[in-house]
């Protein structure tokens, strides 16, 4: 009798067991660059919970999230744009939107996903719900000449700021009418290689490769045009060769100062964001690639270009210097902080691992196996401007 009730109970429970409810705020994904796959992870248990295949060429890939943190939009190198349901761990929709893409962003209202492309040079807007093409803006900077688009960043009012590598321009495209976007153009300088928007969404900065300095546009007063800051930086000094371009996205402001990767020097630039003047340089152990502040701004973590890509330097923003230098693994390509910064996850491409560290003690808490891991993207990005 007891056995019978037991059986009945378990049957009933099975029948009632719909999908288990859970939030998505502590989830994320890891790009496995060589295998066209993402590993979905839980940052609370520090474990992977699913793998999603069939995303094409992810050798250079990035992701943004829907504002509810449920869906990831992954931009692949081959122009693939894939929408992934983080809870059901499956591909919802996938389109090939260009020949060679570099990344993308999502609009302030979460309704438009914009991809930035190298070939054909330009940006394309998609409906975030269906991935239907809404409109496209070719990066034509001279008659018949198209530029690679770099540094695409979202800003207020469903506008997107970006830069043109060959065109030497900053552009702001307004998608308030997503079918009929309007674009403003601003001369920026020689060879902008990447861009970023400040955490408040006010300033768009484009790093210049072809000349010293950084081009800056005040998105609150675009009519004033782009101006150059840090123009005197490194003048007259021989530049070191750059074996990998720095990435500016992910950069943030800490304690009223911005920390930027220098280009052609083994330094992190410190800039006062009230005056946009250089207020210091911090020597580090290589050409910085990512210079990322912990969410509270107390620390700035730095990884490096080849051949120093096994090293990590941690800057204490109060001390203004590197306080921890270590070699966590081989081919450290990217890092991501947990939403409030108690942990950082590092991808060690050549060790086929993602390493998890405590940011207060620098002790290793765990690791996750992944095939040539590169970008790590947590759902907390859903609520941050410029991510």
């Amino acid at each position, binding site marked *: 009798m007891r056995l019978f009730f037991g059986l009945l109970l378990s049957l009933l429970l099975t029948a009632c067991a719909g999908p288990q409810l859970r939030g998505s705020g502590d989830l994320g994904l890891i790009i496995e660059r060589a295998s066209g796959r993402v590993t979905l992870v839980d940052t609370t248990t520090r474990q992977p919970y699913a793998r999603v295949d069939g995303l094409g060429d992810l050798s250079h890939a990035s992701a943004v999230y829907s504002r509810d943190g449920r869906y990831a939009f992954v931009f692949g*190198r*081959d122009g693939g744009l894939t929408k992934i349901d983080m809870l059901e761990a499956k591909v919802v929709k996938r389109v090939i939107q260009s020949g*060679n893409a570099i990344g993308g962003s999502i609009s302030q209202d979460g309704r438009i996903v914009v991809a930035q492309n190298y070939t054909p040079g330009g940006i394309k807007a998609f409906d975030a719900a269906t991935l239907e093409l809404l409109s496209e803006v070719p990066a034509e900077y001279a008659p018949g000449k198209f530029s690679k688009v770099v540094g695409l960043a979202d800003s207020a009012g469903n506008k997107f700021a970006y830069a043109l590598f060959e065109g030497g321009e900053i552009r702001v495209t307004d998608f308030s009418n997503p079918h009929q976007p309007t674009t403003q153009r601003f001369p920026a300088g020689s060879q902008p290689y990447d861009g970023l928007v400040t955490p408040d969404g006010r300033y768009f900065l484009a790093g210049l490769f072809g000349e010293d300095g950084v081009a800056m546009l005040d998105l609150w007063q675009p009519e004033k045009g782009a101006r150059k800051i840090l123009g005197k930086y490194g003048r007259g000094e021989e530049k070191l060769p*750059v074996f990998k*371009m720095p990435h500016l996205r992910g950069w943030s402001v800490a304690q009223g100062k911005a920390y930027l990767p220098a280009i052609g020097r083994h330094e992190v630039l410190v800039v006062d964001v009230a005056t946009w003047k250089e207020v210091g340089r911090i020597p580090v152990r290589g050409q910085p690639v990512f210079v990322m502040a912990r969410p509270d701004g107390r620390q700035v973590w730095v990884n490096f270009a080849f051949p120093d890509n096994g090293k990590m330097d941690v800057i204490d923003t109060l001390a203004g210097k590197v306080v921890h230098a270590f070699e966590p693994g081989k081919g450290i390509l990217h890092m991501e902080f947990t939403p409030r910064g108690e942990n950082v996850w590092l991808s060690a491409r*050549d060790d086929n691992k993602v390493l998890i560290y405590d940011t207060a003690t620098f002790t290793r808490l765990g690791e996750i196996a992944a095939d040539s891991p590169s970008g790590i993207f947590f759902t907390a990005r859903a609520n941050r401007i410029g991510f």
Partner: protein
Amino acid sequence: MLSSRLVFALFWVLTATAGNAQPTIAVEPDAVRQKELVRLVRQDCGSCHGMTLHGGLGPALLPATLQEKPFEGLVATIYYGRPGTPMPPWKRFMSEAEAAWIVQKLMSGFPQ
């Protein structure tokens, strides 16, 4: 320096005369070094040119895109870099003969 130039010149002559066929060259890197160079090209050159060599911020490095370009110019581009562009010199990490081996492989279809 002289000897490496000589080796390079020899390599170039052999490659140039052999056209697209696989030349048999005495200076071909050994198997271990070949593997390292392939990895370097795919992973590190790949930062700009793409891991699949279809291009990125830097141009594609596929046989079709390279076939019109002069062999020795490509070798010099790898070894010395190209001032005025983001292409850095790679001479710290390889010999000129190794750069020539890379170009030859790129022009005929690069190994995985």
